């Protein structure tokens, strides 16, 4: 049996070894946790360092005011605007689909459906999020676009509209799942108080549960927005990859992500302006999503303090 008769002193070799071992394990685990910070640093460092040379060729003013983005043409123009507008158009269409459907589905699942049915439906709904985005791209190009063309004969083979709609379907589960969590975490006594005043379920859902869960629901929306901004394959496949400063959803367009894919498919030498341009585009995208992520966190923190 181990020595149980005497307490070891602090400088006992067994205890020293135990301490060293614990420290070693802790340090390894700590490094693993810290590595995530290095990933972020790596992303920012690479994106910034590869983009900087771009601005030696193109002025920042041209970058933000020029209305054309044609880095591959012999007379190259570098205005990010068409890509940003395309990105926001696709996102807007996606949200128009996803926010109403996601929110209503969440409210329905949280307030109207029996718990055992809900437990069965939720995993099925989450499968929508598990489908690879390239499959959604196929769906947008070869299923949704032909259907839309029946109603809108002027719609071409590639359009922001069909890419946006499919992206919307894709982010429904993100919005519904998080919104439902938020609604269900509203304490039951609030619902009971509302019911006791004679409210119907509908009134309780939208006048009591929805406002109380609003911070959670809005962070679900923001997550949806940042997903839509960064989604790549659906737009790359179905939206046509044509930088196009137009607000018409029936026309083809390109987004930041689709542009990066388009360039990557070709064979641009490292260091060329085309190569640098994808980093500038990527950096713009990163900043855009970062703004929404920070906004989401801010809403969460602010609301948690209030509670």
């Amino acid at each position, binding site marked *: 049996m181990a020595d149980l008769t005497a307490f070891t002193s602090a400088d006992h070799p067994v205890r020293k070894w135990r301490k060293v071992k614990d420290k070693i394990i802790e340090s390894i685990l*700590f490094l693993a*946790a810290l590595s995530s910070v290095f990933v972020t640093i790596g992303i920012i460092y690479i*994106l910034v360092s590869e983009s900087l040379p771009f601005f030696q060729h193109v002025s920042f003013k041209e970058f933000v005011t020029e209305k054309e983005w044609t880095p591959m043409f012999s007379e190259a123009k570098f205005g990010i605007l068409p890509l940003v507008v395309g990105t926001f158009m696709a996102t807007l269409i996606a949200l128009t689909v996803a926010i109403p459907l996601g929110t209503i589905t969440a409210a*329905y699942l949280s307030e109207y459906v029996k718990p055992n049915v809900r437990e069965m439906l939720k995993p099925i709904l989450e499968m929508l999020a598990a489908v690879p*985005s390239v*499959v959604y791209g196929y*769906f947008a190009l070869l299923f949704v676009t032909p259907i839309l063309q029946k109603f809108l004969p002027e719609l071409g083979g590639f359009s922001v509209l069909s890419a946006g709609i499919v992206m919307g379907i894709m982010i429904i589960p993100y919005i*519904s799942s998080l919104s439902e969590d938020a609604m269900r975490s509203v304490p039951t006594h609030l619902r009971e108080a509302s019911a006791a005043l004679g409210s119907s379920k*509908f009134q309780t859902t939208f006048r009591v549960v929805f406002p109380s869960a609003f911070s959670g629901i809005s962070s679900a929306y923001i997550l949806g927005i940042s997903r839509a901004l960064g989604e790549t394959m659906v737009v790359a496949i179905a939206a046509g990859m044509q930088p196009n400063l137009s607000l018409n959803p029936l026309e083809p367009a390109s987004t930041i992500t689709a542009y990066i894919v388009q360039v990557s498919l070709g064979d641009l030498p490292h260091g060329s302006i085309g190569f640098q341009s994808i980093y500038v585009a990527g950096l713009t995208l990163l900043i855009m999503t970062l703004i929404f992520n920070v906004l989401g966190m801010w809403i969460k923190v602010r609301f948690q303090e209030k509670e």
Partner: protein
Amino acid sequence: METIMASASDVENKLEPLSVLKSNLAVNVKQRKRSDFLFSLVGLMSLLFALITLLALFVDLAMTGVPRIDLAFFAEFPSRFASKAGILSAWVGTFAVMITTAFCAIPMGIAAGIYLEEYAPKNWLTRLIELNIINLAGVPSITFGLMALGLFVYKLQLGQSILTAGLTLGLLVLPIIIVTTREAIRTIPNSIREASYGLGATHWQTIQDHILPYSSGGILTGVIIALSRAIGETAPLVTIGALTFIAFLPSSPVSPEYPFLSFKWLMDSFTVMPIQMFNWISRPQAEFHVNAAATGVVLLLMTLIMNGIAIFIRYRFRKKMKW
């Protein structure tokens, strides 16, 4: 009976007339009941919309793709002729990249999750790491591709290899594994930790003998979901310049000479199923779209089976581990 009725109506007659608040009670209740009913209808419809879309996607893909799937489809390399092309190099590539991803992300993710739940002191550094992980989970996947292109392909000269792809996807799914590991560990009540310490166990013994085994179901669920996400991920791999026409397999992991294991395959170029599918969708000919659908069916089945397993494990473990 009649007397009772009579006295009841007497009582009623003695009641004061309804106040204005209650005068249109019946109408109001009817209206609100209708809105209740209408909303449950709308809710059901929006839920059905999502489910029917999912179904339509399956059916459409299956109708086009399934007839194309036969043994040769898995045994052939891609080809200029749609009817001869197969996904051999793509599924082998997917397999090889997944192994690399798993080796990179699983140990690191679980270790980071354990640190944050069991060791991390409450200070600014921990807070920074936590915020960073939340934020990283929201970074678009294509950004990881750009980082990998600059760092792994050019700075570290790893080339457009399986290793580069595995590292990229590994870093991409790292936050998923960290977050699910933490959630799984958090469900273990403190009383179990105290019981272990109370018997004289060390910190690491407690983690090894209790925390990890009891959270293994949740961690496994997270790992499977992370890998299923990585399998379908296309954009970052396109960005690192994964070639789309690969008519050869990576070198064999076993070698005839000592030490019988070879890691040369890590540095080989590759293609994966989603890239192969993307490549075929992008062609104008409809025959290639059939190939794309067939690849899509395989890809979809794989991810759905993985997700199904994850859901099953989560369900089983929740039943087993009732605290």
